[in-house]
C-alpha cells in the first residue's frame, strides 16, 4: 500500500514538473497600451478609446465611407516586459456574414510600438463591396516563440452602400490570353524595280562579249592542233561544269554532295588544265602566239 501511494505521488510529481518546465519555457506575447481612434472624412474625431488588454472593446465600432480607423499598441514579451518586434503581425477582419477574411499587415518597430490604419478611402475592394459586421482580431507570431497570440479587439460595423459590382474580380484565376504578334515581314522593293535591276546588272555581260569579239579572241590555233585544242575545250568545259555545280548547290544540293562533285570535277579540271596550259606555253615559247 505504501508502495502504490509512492507510485501515484511520484507519477503526479513527474507530471507537475513536466508541466512547470513547459510553462517556464513558454514565450508569450503581451499587448499593452491599446488605443483606437476613428476620424471622419472632415477630420472630426468620432471615437477615441483606450482598451485594457486582454479584454475586448464591447461596443461595435462604426465605419462609414471616408472614415479613418487607427489603432496603436505595444507588443511586449511576457517574461521580460520589454518591447519585442515579432515576425508577423496582422489585423484580420473576419466577416460574420460569409466568413471572408481580410488581413491588414502591421509594421511593428523594434521597440514593439506599432500603428495600424484602415482608411475607408483606400480600403480593399472586398471590404467596400460587402457591408456588415466584421470581427477584428490581432494576430502576432514569431518563429522562435511557441505560442502565437490572437487577441479579439472588437467588432467593426462597416456601413457602405451595397454595390452590385457584378461578378467579383477573380484575383487568382487565369489571365486573358496573350496573342503574340510576330514581327511583320520586311518590305521588299516593287517587283518591276527588282526585275529591271536584274536586267541592268546583266548588261555588262553583253558589253564583255561584244568587246571580246571586237578585240578578237583568237581561236585560230584551235584548228591547227586538234588534240591540244581538245584539251583546251575539255578544260574550259570542266570549268563551266564547276560553275553549273555551284548553281545547283545554290538551288538544291547540300554541301556534302557539292564537295563530292567538286573534288571529281576539280581533278578533271586540273589534269586537262595542266595539259592545255603546257601546250599554250609551248606555243608561246615557239613564238606562235
Amino acid at each position, binding site marked *: 500500500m505504501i508502495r502504490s501511494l509512492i507510485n501515484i505521488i511520484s507519477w503526479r510529481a513527474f507530471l507537475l514538473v513536466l508541466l512547470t518546465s513547459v510553462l517556464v519555457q513558454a514565450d508569450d506575447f503581451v499587448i499593452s497600451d491599446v488605443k483606437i481612434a476613428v476620424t471622419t472624412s472632415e477630420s472630426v474625431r468620432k471615437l477615441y478609446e483606450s482598451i485594457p488588454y486582454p479584454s475586448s472593446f464591447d461596443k461595435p465600432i462604426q465605419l462609414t465611407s471616408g472614415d479613418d480607423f487607427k489603432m496603436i499598441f505595444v507588443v511586449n514579451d511576457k517574461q521580460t516586459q520589454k518591447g519585442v518586434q515579432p515576425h508577423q503581425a496582422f489585423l484580420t477582419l473576419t466577416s460574420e456574414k460569409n466568413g471572408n477574411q481580410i488581413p491588414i499587415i502591421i509594421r511593428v518597430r523594434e521597440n514593439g510600438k506599432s500603428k495600424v490604419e484602415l482608411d475607408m478611402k483606400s480600403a480593399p475592394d472586398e471590404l467596400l463591396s460587402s457591408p456588415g459586421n466584421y470581427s477584428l482580431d490581432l494576430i502576432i507570431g514569431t518563429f522562435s516563440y511557441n505560442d502565437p497570440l490572437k487577441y479579439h479587439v472588437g467588432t467593426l460595423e462597416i456601413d457602405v452602400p451595397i454595390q452590385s459590382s457584378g461578378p467579383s474580380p477573380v484575383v487568382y484565376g487565369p489571365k486573358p490570353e496573350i496573342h503574340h504578334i510576330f514581327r511583320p515581314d520586311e518590305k521588299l522593293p516593287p517587283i518591276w524595280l527588282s526585275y529591271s535591276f536584274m536586267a541592268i546588272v546583266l548588261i555588262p555581260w553583253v558589253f564583255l562579249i561584244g568587246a*571580246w569579239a571586237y578585240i578578237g579572241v583568237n581561236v585560230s590555233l584551235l584548228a591547227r592542233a586538234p588534240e591540244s585544242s581538245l584539251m583546251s575545250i575539255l578544260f574550259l568545259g570542266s570549268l563551266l561544269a564547276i*560553275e553549273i555545280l555551284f548553281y545547283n548547290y*545554290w538551288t538544291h544540293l547540300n554541301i556534302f554532295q557539292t564537295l563530292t562533285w567538286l573534288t571529281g570535277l*576539280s581533278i578533271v579540271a586540273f589534269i586537262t588544265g595542266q595539259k592545255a*596550259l603546257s601546250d599554250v606555253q609551248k606555243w608561246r615559247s615557239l613564238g606562235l602566239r
Partner: protein
Amino acid sequence: MSDKVSSAIQKLWTSYSKNTPQSLQLIDTYLVFILFSGVFQFVHCVLVGTFPYNAFLAGFISTVGSFVLAANLRIQTNPDNAGEFKSISPERAFAEFVFCNIVLHFFVVNFIG
C-alpha cells in the same frame, strides 16, 4: 581647256589600242565588265536598302574579289613586268587565277543563301 583634255584622252586611247598586247586588252575589258557589275549592284542597294544583306554582300564582294584577282593576273602576265616574276610563268599565273576564282565563287555561293 576641255579640248586639251579630250585630245589627251584621244591620244591615250590610240596609244593604248596600238601598244597593248591583245591578251592584256582582253583582261582589261574583263576588268571593266566586273567594275560595272559591282557599280550596278551597289546602286541597287543604295536605292532599295539592304534587306537581304547577305545577298548584297555576296554579290558585291564577288565583284570586288574578281576584280582584284583579274588585276593580279594582268600584273603577272604583263611582258614588261617579266623581270619581276621569273618563277611564275603567265600560264601558271592563269592557273592560279582560275583556282582562286573557283574558291571565291564557292564562298560567294555559300553566302548568297
